[in-house]
């Protein structure tokens, strides 16, 4: 009975868009229950939304991302992507990490082609798309450069293009620009917003920077550690496209203060 209702339950109406990821009481423990990495996470993410996961180290934000990607299995609760329960890595999602994890022996173009090579023999169309994506991330002059010849920011751009090459409509980004300097990070954030809007992807973005989380997202999952849990889901009302200048507006700062208070409350 329970499964039937789950299968046929209509997508909750979130602003007229269907839900692509749904979590109900999702939990993850390590070491046979000794370490609770995530507890009781319930949420719904509508199609095309940009969600930020913000919180200090150990709050379970990376764990939640890996659960959604299927890289690790949950220990309790329900978790569905496109209505199907998650079990094992699946092609609906693509991941990007803090380190670019490019292969040193491949050019940018070949690195971007990797996801296509894993699923099939790359066609001419795949190659054209890879080149096109590298142009989209601003690397049209570096198609044949090797990773060691690129700066950290450029390497992350290649990793982003590789993520888009998977064709996944859900992008999971685990502090993708966390190792870069402030200026590079800000520029890449703006480009990221432009690019995901262009491809219409649903995006989950992990960060520990409150202002960054708010600036990028439609929804901010505020998470706290020991045990890791989502304490509140904050809606961000600002219009898109967002100029950098909104970060100095009183409304923005009020929102930052509100999120910071949520952390202050538990310490």
């Amino acid at each position, binding site marked *: 009975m329970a499964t039937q209702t789950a299968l046929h339950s209509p997508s909750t109406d979130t602003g007229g868009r269907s839900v692509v990821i749904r979590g109900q009481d999702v939990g993850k423990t390590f070491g046979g229950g000794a370490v609770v990495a995530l507890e009781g996470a319930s949420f719904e993410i509508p199609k095309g939304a940009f969600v930020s996961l913000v919180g200090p180290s150990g709050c379970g934000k990376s764990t939640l991302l890996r659960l959604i990607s299927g890289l690790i299995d949950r220990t309790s609760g329900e978790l569905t992507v496109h209505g199907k329960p998650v079990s094992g*890595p699946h092609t609906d999602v693509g991941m990007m990490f803090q380190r670019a994890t490019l292969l040193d022996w491949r050019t940018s173009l070949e690195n971007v082609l990797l996801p296509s090579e894993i699923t099939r023999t790359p066609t001419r169309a795949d190659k054209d798309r890879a080149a096109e994506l590298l142009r989209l991330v601003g690397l049209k002059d570096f198609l044949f450069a090797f990773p060691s010849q690129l700066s950290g920011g450029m390497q992350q751009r290649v990793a982003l293009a590789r993520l888009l090459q998977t064709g996944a409509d859900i992008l999971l980004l685990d502090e993708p620009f966390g190792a870069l300097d402030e200026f590079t990070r800000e520029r890449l954030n703006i480009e990221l917003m432009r690019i995901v809007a262009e491809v219409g992807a649903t995006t989950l973005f992990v960060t520990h920077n409150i202002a960054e989380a708010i600036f990028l997202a439609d929804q901010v999952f505020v998470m706290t550690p020991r045990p890791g849990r989502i304490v509140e889901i904050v809606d961000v009302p600002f219009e898109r496209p967002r100029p950098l200048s909104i970060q100095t507006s009183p409304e923005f700062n009020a929102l930052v203060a509100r999120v910071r208070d949520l952390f202050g409350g538990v310490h």
Partner: protein
Amino acid sequence: MAVQEIAGVTAPPGRGLSIGQRRALTHAAIFISLIGLWEAASRLGWLDPLFYPRPSDILVSFWLIYVQNGNVGWNLYVTLGLVLAGWVAGSVLGVGLGALVGFNPLVRRFLKPYVIVLEATPRIAVAPLLIAALGFGAPSKIAIIMLVCFFAPFINTLSGVVNVDPGRMELFRSLRASKLQVMRKLVLPDAVPVIMAGERLALTAALSGALVAEFIQRDQGIGSMILIYTRNLNMASAFACIFTLTIVGFLMFKGMELVDQRVAYWKNEAGLKRVSDRRRARAQAEGVI
């Protein structure tokens, strides 16, 4: 480096020689005085020329063994043939076993004590045993070389395969790559520089192994030449053979360096540029860009 640059700035101008030229001269001067000292010490009777040959005598011996007798050519050919055969066999075995063990955690666990024991054993010590088992001649020599140079490629391949970056592994998992794809597209290319380092060590070990095998068998090859010349107290010729091995060793070293730079092209500037240019040309021919 900083010291050299400062020296360049403060060097008195107008001596007509560049720093490089002056250094080359100093090198030459040191070398010539060392040789001169050696020659003089021998002529003045401080060194017994029977045991410590004069540089001039070694030079004469070079002419003898290369031109007049010409026996070094054949013997060198024999030794290098053995080295090549043993090295190739040992490498194939080492890399193959290393990859096999690396990919199989269970085998790895049970093999570990044996690897530790093998590592601690002076592997060249099996030379007399192998000769006793396989008899005199090329087969036992090749077996010795193979055994001596098997270990470095084995252990390096093993560690290259085992020490895969976890971040990259996670990427491949998230792309749902098969085991075979992980191996072909991630693990093996990633291990290439480490494997090449193992091959370099193996080639050096192979030459040493060949020499020990020839010392014991005393039939042919440059090792036998050294042994026999020394026995006859023809030390100058023995030294000429050893300096020949220096040249051989140097050529092997440079050759491996060259191969390494081509195979692990992403580890050096020139290789990156070369491959990058080639791939761009290919993509242009295909019309991708």
